[in-house]
């Protein structure tokens, strides 16, 4: 067996999953979460989230009945919290796509432990995001006017409008993410189907696994489909938030009309998304005992990405000021001085401290590997990133015309919808944790050393 001796002496690959688990160990550990008894904490959290989420029904009903005047909107702040929340949630989604698509294209095999729930996070975040522009259109019953549908008025949507670009970009983003997530789920749903003890489960998971048989004649099309989906999702990571930023950047408004917006928004999106991945990963691995799959190495790498993107965001903040000064445009200069020292200075400095100062702790290896520190940091970054969008949108309150300057105060409905969207997000996420495999089993098995056909075949598995 000289051939085998030769191949086993290849350089040892990085151990991604510690503890040398067998294929069955992986199956069992992940499936047991779906099959086992629901933890009590899950019921508590689910009840709270579901109540908050269902309050959305009443809030949105009242909004449609009464109109968007129930928010604290004024002119010039015509967008208010709805667009703050929209940009916040779309941004969260980007980390999931980056993990699932870009890290896949770059052959970062460590992603397999975290990609499933990061993708789930993407989809739920984009659902929350889509809610806000949908209810903000005012006359929601004619929302289909955004789609190019021939109609009796002989009108077409304005394809030059950034708001329409947004509709297409985010709609495509949601669809492509959903496809990617579902295709990834098929083999794992088949695993749950084959292990199902009850008839009901067998039928439920049987339908959604589409009759998957794991033959290589299926895998070869499957793998290419997965690669293509990763390939087409990769530009989406960069394009979607760039297009979102053009909602602002193409307007001729001081503080918004800047070319730095697209890259600045994308960096911010990845930054906030990774913070959310971190928050969810820390909780999920603790509650479900997944420390061996989502290892400290994964968390450390997430923290490094947060550090890098946090620095980019910090650079963008300072560059905005520099360009405002360098442009010599007094309106632009006023907009930025007003941001930092005007009536919303409190929000600006919350933003700067959370987004620029907090990630600096990750320079230290000790804190990159410290659960409590990174958990607190991830929460603060999420707060900071919400305030970043708040600062961008709400400081518009002081535009060219001093006569229309006003202080934007949210009403109970502004706050209620933001809280409601968190309820919706966590309801969906908890349902996902309960009923779907939260770690991509087939992909994790594929990165175990014994999955390599050159492994020699002597290993257990």
């Amino acid at each position, binding site marked *: 067996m000289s051939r085998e001796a030769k191949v086993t002496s290849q350089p040892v690959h990085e151990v991604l999953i510690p503890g040398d688990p067998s294929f069955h160990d992986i199956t069992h550990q992940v499936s047991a979460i779906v099959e086992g008894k629901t933890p009590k904490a899950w019921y508590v959290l689910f009840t709270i989230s579901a109540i908050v989420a269902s309050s959305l029904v009443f809030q949105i009903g009242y909004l449609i009945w009464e109109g968007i005047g129930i928010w604290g909107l004024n002119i010039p702040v015509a967008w208010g919290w709805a667009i703050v929340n929209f940009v916040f949630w779309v941004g969260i989604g980007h980390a999931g796509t980056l993990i699932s698509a870009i890290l896949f294209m770059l052959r970062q095999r460590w992603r397999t432990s975290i990609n499933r729930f990061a993708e789930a996070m993407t989809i739920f975040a984009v659902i929350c995001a889509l809610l806000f522009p949908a209810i903000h259109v005012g006359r929601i019953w004619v929302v289909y006017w955004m789609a190019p549908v021939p109609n009796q008025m002989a009108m077409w949507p304005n394809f030059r409008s950034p708001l329409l670009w947004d509709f297409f970009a985010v709609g495509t983003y949601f669809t492509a993410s959903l496809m990617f997530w579902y295709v990834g789920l098929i083999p794992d749903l088949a695993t749950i189907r084959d292990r199902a003890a009850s008839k009901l489960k067998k039928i439920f998971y049987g339908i959604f696994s589409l009759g998957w048989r794991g033959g290589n004649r299926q*895998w070869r*099309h499957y793998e290419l489909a997965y690669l293509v989906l990763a390939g087409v999702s990769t530009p989406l990571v960069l394009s979607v938030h760039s297009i979102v930023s053009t909602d602002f950047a193409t307007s001729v408004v001081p503080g918004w009309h800047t070319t730095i917006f697209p890259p600045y928004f994308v960096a911010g999106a990845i930054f906030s998304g990774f913070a959310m991945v971190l928050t969810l990963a820390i909780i999920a691995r603790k509650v479900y005992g997944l420390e061996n799959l989502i290892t400290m190495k994964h968390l450390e790498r997430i923290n490094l990405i947060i550090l890098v993107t946090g620095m980019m965001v910090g650079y963008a903040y300072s560059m905005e000021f520099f360009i405002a000064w360098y442009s010599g445009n007094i309106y632009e200069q006023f907009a930025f001085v007003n941001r930092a020292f005007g009536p919303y200075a409190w929000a600006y400095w919350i933003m700067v401290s959370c987004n620029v100062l907090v990630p600096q702790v990750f320079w230290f290896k000790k804190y990159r590997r410290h659960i409590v520190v990174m958990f607190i940091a991830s929460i603060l970054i999420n707060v900071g990133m919400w305030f970043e969008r708040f600062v961008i949108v709400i400081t518009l309150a002081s535009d060219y015309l001093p006569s229309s300057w006003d202080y934007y105060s949210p009403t109970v409905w502004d706050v209620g919808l933001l809280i409601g969207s968190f309820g919706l997000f966590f309801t969906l996420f908890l349902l996902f944790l309960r009923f779907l495999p939260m770690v991509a*089993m087939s992909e994790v098995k594929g990165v175990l050393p014994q999955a390599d056909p050159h*492994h020699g075949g002597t290993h257990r598995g």
Partner: protein
Amino acid sequence: MAESDGKVYGMIAEFESPAHLIEAAAKVRSEGYRKFDCHSPFPIHGMDQAMGLGRSPLGFLVGIAAFSGLGFMTWLTWYTSVVDYPLVISGKPFFSYQAYVPVVFAITILCAALTATFGMFHLNRIPMLFHPMFNCEQFKKVTDDGFFVSIEARDSKFDEQRTRAFLESIGGTNVEVIRE
């Protein structure tokens, strides 16, 4: 559930590991079998070559769909802004294609993603909720840690005794006949 009645669909044999499965695939193929498949819980690198399968045609389908989406959306933006509803906005050209890039790009991606997914469904003949392979109790391991070779009875070389002996000779265990 291996009932003795019912038409024979094929035969499966279990192998120990991905390395063994890939070796077996090459042997099954060189023995002259064509209607066979290798089942595993995850895709195995190099299995396509071992089984003598070419590249999946899915890429072409996606390419065609993506370019169709690109072409259609370019046409639609042109038609709506030049022919059907021309609007003069600050004297700008009707076909200001630079502004249409985001929309055209989005639809291109959308067509590619939908075709990748549903094209894969079509090529894999899924959803197919029932299949004779599911009659086999041990085949349930395939989504956990089982590695199987299956040979269909439709294959011209298939013969219950000889195929069984062959599968055992190349290291297959738990050889079982699958009935419909």
